[in-house]
């Protein structure tokens, strides 16, 4: 492959409160690909997602991250967002008093400005939002409500996917968006993700369960364990994990360390 990766992580080590969480991650995601990063609780999945989105509480010990060939780590979270990185939060934040519609119009317009596109006025944005809301079967009443305020767990996740479809990122990172969803909501979320698949775009699905992968077929599956990617493979790896659990990976690592 002579194309350049959209996201390239080289030996990334990250610490918080003196404790190393990511212990040397190396990963390349090419445009058009869907990667799934799986792993047990505490393996560092969410840390990786937060670091990529620019959360400042983490300390980078070593390594580098290139986004479309550019050094990502010095960029502010808003800079990353404007350049096309989107993180769907595991725990979306509630913002009372600020309507979903207003919040997203502000977000979409900052991104459009960056891309040299004209800003959308209230009417244009409403039309766009209604169209995208249909896609993720988001109740239109949620557009007028305050951001995530009083939303059910499923509505919050759907709202994240809704935001993603509006912002049309180049690199979408979904942090356990599939957790805590019933099967209908899961199907809708998958539909939103699949609609976003595009040769110029990459998607990283961080997940604890294999379930979502029944609806979104990944190109590559990685297993994150204790801050390292210990195994990578095709979609069949996800099935194997589902069947055998993460204990099997642990044993394999210990085994290889002994030999």
């Amino acid at each position, binding site marked *: 492959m002579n194309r350049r990766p959209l996201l390239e992580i080289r030996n990334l080590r990250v610490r918080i409160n003196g404790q190393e969480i990511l212990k040397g991650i190396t990963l390349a995601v090419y445009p058009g690909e869907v990667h799934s990063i799986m792993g047990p609780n505490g393996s560092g999945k969410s840390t990786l997602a937060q670091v990529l989105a620019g959360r400042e509480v983490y300390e980078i010990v070593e390594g580098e991250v290139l986004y479309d060939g550019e050094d990502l780590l010095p960029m502010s979270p*808003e800079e990353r*967002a404007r350049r096309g990185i989107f993180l769907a939060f595991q725990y979306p934040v509630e913002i009372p*008093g*600020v309507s979903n519609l*207003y919040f997203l119009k502000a977000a979409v317009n*900052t*991104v459009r400005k*960056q891309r040299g596109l004209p800003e959308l006025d209230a009417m244009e944005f409403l039309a766009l939002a209604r169209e995208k809301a249909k896609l993720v079967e988001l109740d239109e009443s949620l557009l007028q409500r305050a951001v995530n305020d009083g939303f059910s767990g499923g509505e919050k996740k759907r709202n994240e996917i809704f935001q993603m479809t509006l912002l049309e990122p180049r690199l979408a990172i979904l942090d356990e968006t599939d957790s805590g969803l019933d099967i209908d909501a899961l199907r809708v979320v998958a539909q939103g993700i699949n609609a976003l698949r595009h040769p110029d775009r990459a998607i990283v699905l961080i997940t604890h369960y294999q379930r979502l992968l029944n609806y979104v077929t990944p190109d590559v599956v990685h297993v994150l364990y204790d801050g390292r990617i210990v195994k990578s493979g095709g979609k069949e790896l996800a099935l194997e994990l589902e069947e055998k659990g993460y204990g099997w990976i642990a044993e394999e690592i210990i085994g290889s360390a002994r030999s």
Partner: protein
Amino acid sequence: MKDMRLDHRQEQALYRTHFAQWNERLGAREPAWLRARREAAFARFEALGFPTPRQEEWRFTNIAPLLRVPFRLAAAWPERPLPDEWLAPYREWAAYHLVFVNGHFAGELPTDDRPPRLLARGIRALLHEEPEILEPHLVRFAEDASSAFTALNAAFLTDGAFVRIPRGAVLETPIHLLFLTLEEGMPAVTHPRNVILAEENSQATIIESYVSLGDGQYFTNAVTEIWVGENAILQHYKVQRESRAAFHIASVRIAEERTAMALDFSIALGAALARTDIVAILKGEGAECTLNGFYWARDQQLVDHHTVIEHAAPHGTSREFYKGILDNEARGVFDGTIIVRPGAQKTDARQVNKNLLLSTDALVNTNPRLQILADDVKCSHGATIGHLDEDALFYCRSRGLDAETAREMLTYAFASDILNTIAFGPLRRSVGEWVLTEWPEGEMLKELL
């Protein structure tokens, strides 16, 4: 420099001189009963003396800076009509406006739908024409409070609004009492006094605004007495937008009869030092009282609210919700007392005070006090002091909003629930605008209003 003296006798002497001059100026032009009440009030002031930080009620609010300034009594603004730009910001409000300049009645902006029996006038004019209307009410009700400032207000009583909403009348448009201060020359003091009577089964909204026409130093010492008759509904908003160099001391006293409903909403945005005391007494059975407040202080402003809700009869309900934003080196004080008298059974009282500190140098003292002397009651209180949520800031920034916009959006979000309880739309939008206008990214947030 900190004032270490234990009393303020020296400053009181100045007020004694002013009081003698004021009495001379009024001469025989006032009824004897009022002269007697004013003199009694001044005697009370002298006995009480100005408060010092050694008194519990004034522990966090040192008035020494106020006492250092030799304020003269403010003079009336002689020119008519009033300049249009003074009133322009309020013309769009569908309200009946009574305008006071430097504490003296200066005119009104009438509306078409004024109820025929409504009485809403300047007190000074009414004293000349129909003093017997005022005699039962003026300098009566608030005077049991042991406040030197209330006594001083009575002693120097100059003008203010007298509003009587007749029995059964429902006022669709609010009455706006607009107190404008125009600073000229030496710093001046005004002592506005308002009396609001909502007769039984009436319903009305009163907005009391204190606005500066400049940025100079002056002192407003206001007292408002509110009586809410049986089954009447009264909403009272006090909007404090004094100059950032001004001192604002105000007292609001509310008495409620049987099944009356009162709302007092204190909005504090201006002044160098602002202190508001609110006392609501639920005298009649089944009365309801809501005390709401919003304060925003920055730089070295000090904003202090002391509230007392006294449940004196059974089946009373009170709700208190105060929210404050403090930036830079601002100081906030919230002191909320709930008293449930013996026999005031089935009282249901709730108090919440939430504060957002935007700077590590800002400070707030919040102090709930419950005195419950009945045994079958529900009372709760809660107070929080916090900073902007880092997770929420990151969330906004991860959607492309810059850090300042994210901070302002979340600050607005903090204030929105209390501001959204302002029922009169033009006031609600105006308060939002007054605040957002001063924020670097506020223009964009105005869409939310």
